[in-house]
């Protein structure tokens, strides 16, 4: 496994210039994710129009994998329905943990995260934002949810 496979250009680019980064006011859902192992902390805020994610932004601090994953995630789920986004969450989870990688077409740019699988200590960095998003989407009243922890 080469380092370049973990830190692909897409990852480096999204770390350098995270998309949809910053506050979103007002938001229909706002959930904080925290990885106590490394101190990574991010907040995902989104707006829902009916069942569709009409806008999503994140802010916080984390490593390149965590930042790039969150940035890629916001791009990928904007405009998707709640159900579509949750399905994508399952696919990404599979991508990060299973040997049988899901279809690259389905993942689009998110396939850049596939290198993380070879670095078990870093899987949580990539998945934190997704768990945070799923928590927001799965609840009818997501603003009442407690913060998400990877532990």
């Amino acid at each position, binding site marked *: 496994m080469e*380092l370049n496979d973990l*830190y692909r250009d897409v990852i480096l680019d999204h770390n*350098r210039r995270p998309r949809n980064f910053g506050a979103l006011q007002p938001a229909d859902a706002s959930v904080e994710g925290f990885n106590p192992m*490394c*101190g*990574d902390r991010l907040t995902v805020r989104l707006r829902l129009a009916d069942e569709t994610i009409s806008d999503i932004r994140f802010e916080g601090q984390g*490593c390149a*994998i965590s930042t790039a994953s969150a940035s890629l995630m916001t791009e990928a789920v904007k405009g998707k329905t709640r159900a579509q986004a949750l399905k994508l969450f399952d696919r990404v989870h599979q991508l990060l943990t299973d040997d049988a990688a899901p279809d690259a077409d389905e993942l689009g740019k998110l396939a850049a995260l596939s290198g993380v699988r070879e670095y078990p200590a*870093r899987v949580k960095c990539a998945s934190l934002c997704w768990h945070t998003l799923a928590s927001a989407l799965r609840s009818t009243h997501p603003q009442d949810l407690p913060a998400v922890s990877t532990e």
Partner: protein
Amino acid sequence: MNNMALVDRPTGFDVHALRREFPVLARTVRGKPLAYLDNGASAQRPLAVIDAVDDYERRHHANIHRGVHTLSQEATALYETARDRLVRFINARSRHEVIFVRGTTEAINLVAQSYARPLLGPGDEILITHLEHHANIVPWQMVCEQTGATLVVAPMDSRGEVHADAVAALMSPRTRLFACAHVSNALGTVLPIRRLIAAAKARGITTLIDGAQAVPHMHVDVQELGCDFYAFSGHKMFGPTGVGVLYGREQLLERMPPWQGGGEMILSVTFAKTTYNGLPNKFEAGTPNISGGIGLGAAADFLMGMDRGAAHAHETALLDHATAVLSRIPDLRIVGTAADKASLVSFAVAGVHPHDLGTILDEDGIAIRTGHHCAMPVMEFFNLPATARASFAFYNTFEEIDRLAAGVERALKLFA
């Protein structure tokens, strides 16, 4: 001519000979020679420790203190000999003052629950400092919750130094216990514990020193320090995990109730009344980590057999070298710049998160620690979520530090 032997005595420190005592240092990681710079988290074991544990496991294992058969007697003798070695290692007055525990964390919890909890009440204060490891914060917070006492935190400055005057200013008639690190795990600061202990003693305040990061780096003499309690872990001083020592002044330990109940800590048990065993067994309920204790005794022997002055000089040279080469890297900031430091360097690199740095360095076979180092209040003080920490032992080399610096440069290039 009379002084020639003294003058000519070799002062060189043969790090390569020493490295051969530590088998793991010869391995490769990801195809590169291992550069193990995470000694602050856990140090590696010399053959002396590995062999002592191996010999016990192969030839002598049985439960201790209770069998009349040969193996039990041999195991007991080995375990208690290990205790004797630790008595010498820290210059305790007697075997009654060396309690085997699981590690520093358990030692501090023992004092919190067995010494502090029965003593404290509302209005009383426990004094600690800002740079403590969570293990020297949380047990006191728990005791404060249980008793209504208050936790008071003495400040550190922007270099990560704790000043004895500032701490002493917070010692009051309400202060019942003062606990602090000997060496900061997150910053490397060596605290002025002689002055701190003297200030506490002058006011009748009981003292506990968290020595987890000190014993691997310097000779510790608890009688000379004059502290009431001193806690340390086996695995940070080249011994096994899951074993450590609580030193306590016998007078205090005698007065303390047992912490945990069970076998080993009793003299007699009826359903009406149990009579507790004497020191040190009173605090060692249950079958202990026998092989760990024996390994820790071997580690203490190993350290006592070394020229620790020369080892310390080598470590200081490593620290100076690391500070110099890392300081030359633009965008790198050393966190913790105390005048008196143990040989570790905590740092942050602008634009490179410590976890990414840790992964990139591992690719080069270099092991460092990244994260908050179980010292979140320290990270908050420096306004950092995490740092990278390279912590050295006497077996590290200048070349390993050069590789570290080159790795950091490589990471900077990748993220530029």
